[in-house]
């Protein structure tokens, strides 16, 4: 049988980078084909070529055995290809129906929108494939899981047969991931074919019929999930053996370092983002904050580090009241802070590595004497850190904007961890990094913990939280709904809490496994 899609020898060069190097890929009808690779391996570039957003420098695309040339997304749509992008392509102020029909509108009298007819089609699709959604709802009012369903409905509305899902699980809770997998299975049963892009080994093994691994723009190989395991896939992805499980010696919690009491914080729109939150972090322990993005973690972290106004409540650091204290005071008391958005809040991209490494301490000896900067000392300090933290940069004078994401993050980690600190606040410390860098940063965090530093770790990656934390606090709609010791923190249980299931009910549902979904 001819495959529904075949890519032959696809090559794409960007200035200085070979993003895709003669990639071959075959998708059979009714198959879920996973594309596995690290960030920057070239998965998304390949799919953007298939969707007509980029033009390949070399190579051919065949659909149902016929050679096609795809110049634009409109061509791709006409060929039955649809893509759910990693960042949703939805307009928040439009309704579900408006988003779905955009570009292929139902009209009356040639031009006037027929919202009823389009909504009826949306309803029909949502029933056929089990994608529950209200056609009249505005996107901005919907949770991400539902927004993703809208994206899938968009493809089905255009009668796409080949669905590309680019990192679709990154924004979902474990339960939402299960729902998505249910939807994917129902889609292939009804004759659709799916390319599933991911860097999460477990998910790929669970859902895919065939796994193709890409590294540095090249196909490393294709395996069936029954022939593979996580270790094999990880080493294919990275090109060397990887340590997936971290060695975590038992924690020896000491005195409380950070105490947070009844914190009340608002977001930019003046809406309550952190709702009476209390917890403490002791020296030598890691407290993980789990939660789906947008449940108040960002605002909580910013409030603790002095970057956001606290409406009510207290923050104490080493017994001292630092509620609404300026960030410099909080830093000088011994706080290291790895911010969530490293490019916006962590670095001055237009400055060299050397300058970025002293952003917290530039005004103090030995880097400054009075009003004078000691550039020689600063350079030596930078060179030492570049070596110690293995920052891959041409020199300490290179601009931070020229470094890769992983190395930018290492600059921040070096700056924050090389100081004598008592508290480390790390928000999404490994977001978007490759496996190697993640491994490194995790080890550094554990190292600090064994030195007696108190660590507050906020992450939306549940795996990361479970690997590192001694206790897990789950945030949902601005509140900490539970604080769970590591021993009881299973993926299912924390996942249910993240989705807003009350602690008691969550515990019962986990006990009568398997977890009911759908």
């Amino acid at each position, binding site marked *: 049988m001819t495959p529904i899609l075949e890519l032959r020898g696809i090559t794409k060069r960007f200035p200085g980078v070979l993003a895709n190097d003669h990639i071959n890929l075959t998708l059979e009808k009714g198959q879920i084909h996973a594309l596995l690779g690290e960030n920057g391996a070239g998965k998304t570039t390949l799919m953007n070529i298939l969707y007509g957003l980029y033009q390949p420098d070399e190579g051919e695309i065949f659909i149902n055995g016929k050679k096609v040339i795809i110049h634009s*997304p409109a061509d791709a749509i006409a060929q039955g290809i649809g893509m759910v992008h990693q960042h949703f392509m939805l307009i928040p102020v439009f309704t579900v129906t408006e988003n779905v029909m955009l*570009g292929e509108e139902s009209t009356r009298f040639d031009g006037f929108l027929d919202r009823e007819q389009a909504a009826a089609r949306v309803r029909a699709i949502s029933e056929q494939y089990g994608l529950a*959604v209200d056609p009249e709802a505005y996107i901005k009012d919907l*949770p991400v899981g*539902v927004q993703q369903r809208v994206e899938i409905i968009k493809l089905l509305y255009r009668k796409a047969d080949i669905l590309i899902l680019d990192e679709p699980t990154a924004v979902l809770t474990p*339960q939402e991931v299960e729902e998505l997998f249910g939807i994917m299975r129902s889609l292939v049963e009804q004759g659709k074919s799916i390319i599933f892009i991911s860097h999460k080994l477990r998910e790929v093994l669970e859902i895919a019929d065939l796994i193709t691994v890409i590294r540095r723009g090249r196909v490393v190989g294709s395996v069936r999930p029954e022939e593979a395991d996580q270790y094999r896939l990880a080493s294919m992805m990275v090109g060397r053996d990887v340590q997936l499980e971290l060695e975590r010696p038992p924690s020896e919690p000491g005195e409380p370092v950070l105490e947070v009491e009844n914190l009340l914080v608002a977001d930019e729109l*003046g809406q309550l983002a952190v709702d009476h939150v209390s917890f403490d972090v002791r020296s030598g322990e890691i407290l993980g904050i789990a939660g789906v993005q947008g449940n108040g973690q960002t605002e909580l972290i910013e409030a603790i580090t002095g970057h956001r106004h606290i409406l009510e409540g207290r923050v104490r650091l080493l017994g001292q009241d630092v509620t609404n204290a300026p960030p410099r005071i909080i830093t000088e008391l011994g706080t290291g802070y790895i911010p969530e958005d490293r490019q916006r809040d962590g670095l001055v991209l237009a400055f060299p590595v050397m300058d970025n490494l002293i952003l917290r301490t530039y005004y103090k000896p030995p880097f400054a004497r009075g009003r004078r900067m000691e550039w020689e000392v600063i350079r030596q300090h930078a060179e030492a850190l570049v070596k110690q933290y293995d920052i891959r940069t041409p020199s300490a004078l290179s601009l931070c904007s020229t470094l890769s994401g992983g190395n930018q993050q290492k600059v921040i980690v070096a700056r924050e961890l090389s100081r004598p600190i008592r508290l480390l606040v790390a928000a999404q410390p490994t977001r978007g990094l490759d496996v190697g860098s993640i491994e490194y940063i995790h080890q550094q965090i554990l190292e600090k913990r064994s030195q007696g530093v108190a660590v507050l770790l906020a992450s939306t990656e549940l795996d990361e939280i479970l690997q590192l934390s001694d206790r897990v606090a789950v945030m949902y709609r601005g509140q900490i709904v539970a604080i769970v010791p590591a021993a009881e923190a299973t993926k299912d249980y924390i996942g249910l809490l993240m989705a807003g*299931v009350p602690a008691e009910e969550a515990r019962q549902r986990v006990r009568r496994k398997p977890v009911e979904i759908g």
Partner: protein
Amino acid sequence: MATTTSAFHRKIEVVSPTRQRVMGILFILLGLILVFFFTPGLSQGQITTFGLSLATSDIQLPPWQVHTLPTLYGLAVASAILGGIQLARGFGRYTNWVLGLVVGFFIFGFLVWAAAGKSLNLVGMFNTTLSRSVPITLGALSGILCERSGVVNIAIEGMMLTGAMVSALVGSITQNAWLGLLAAILAGALLALVHAVLSIKYKTNQIVSGTVINIFATGLTSYISAKFLQVNQALNNPPTFGGTPIPLLSEIPILGPVLFNNSIFVYVMFILLFVLNVALFQTRWGLRLRAVGEHPKAADTLGIDVFKTRYMAVVLGGMVAGFAGGYFTLGSAGRFDEVMTAGRGFIGLAAMIFGNWNPFGAFGAGLLFGFADALASRLAILGIAIPSQFLLMAPYIATMIVLAGVIGRARPPAADGIPYEKE
């Protein structure tokens, strides 16, 4: 469906009660101003007279007379009571409606005070308000077209000015007002095309591009005016569009003379208002235009041509601005004078923001600005001590308050002013 991902999404409640308090205090303050600033100096039994018919109308309504002092006290008490309720428990989502009501009370109170013991013709004033609001509203509609597609256009002032000059010139040469108007529209379109190419193709900063066009337009029109139009009056004597009363409708008391006895500019403005509103929100064209202004990349991935859509929107906007320019010469003055648009294009942008990028909202704001304009000239006639400049400032203070987000935040299209980069 699993309960874990309920489609319901509880909105976290607004914490800060500041806005509620500010509003309540404002209501009470307006009431107090009515009492303490307006009532002193008035005597018992004084009467304010409002004329309800124009002298030229066939049907004459008797004037409306109110007792000045009791009316002022009544309005003040009503404002204070509303303020008290607002402070005590708030009007929630009706707050803005109540605000409108209180401001209405205040303006009415102001008129009652200003015309105390005299007579003020309301119909005449509404008519002036409407015609003064025409260029402002048209400017706002032009801005809405551009900005809903994601291109900021502060060059509307320059486009209007050029339209005004060109229509005077072409109108004078051909002695045909319609040709003059057509030339104005084309001139607006041409300048808009320049703005579009700069900001869409070359991705220039749109504020800079708009500023440059405004300066260019001022220079060009002033030069041509000084060199030719003022020297040779035959080049600055276009025929004008007079009032065109609509039969029957213009005879309706009060409304008739205000709405249906105007120049074609007023009628076209109303038509544009309705057409644009339907086009933006009920047609495929409008859905795509708005999508491009909100999230161009999403539109692009669905096969919509972002660049083409933006070019079209900006050029259409320029045509509307050029048409508005024609109003100054062909609809109003009958000649071109240097810098005669006097910032109406910029005020149009303020009206657009005030109206939250909606045609009818912008028209409402245009009316408000036009009202201040009309009021200023009436008060001069009534001999009121307040300098008219202060009255003319009032709407802009209101605009600043809107921009600061006190009366609910104005929300521009998400991609407004950001050039689209195709990968």
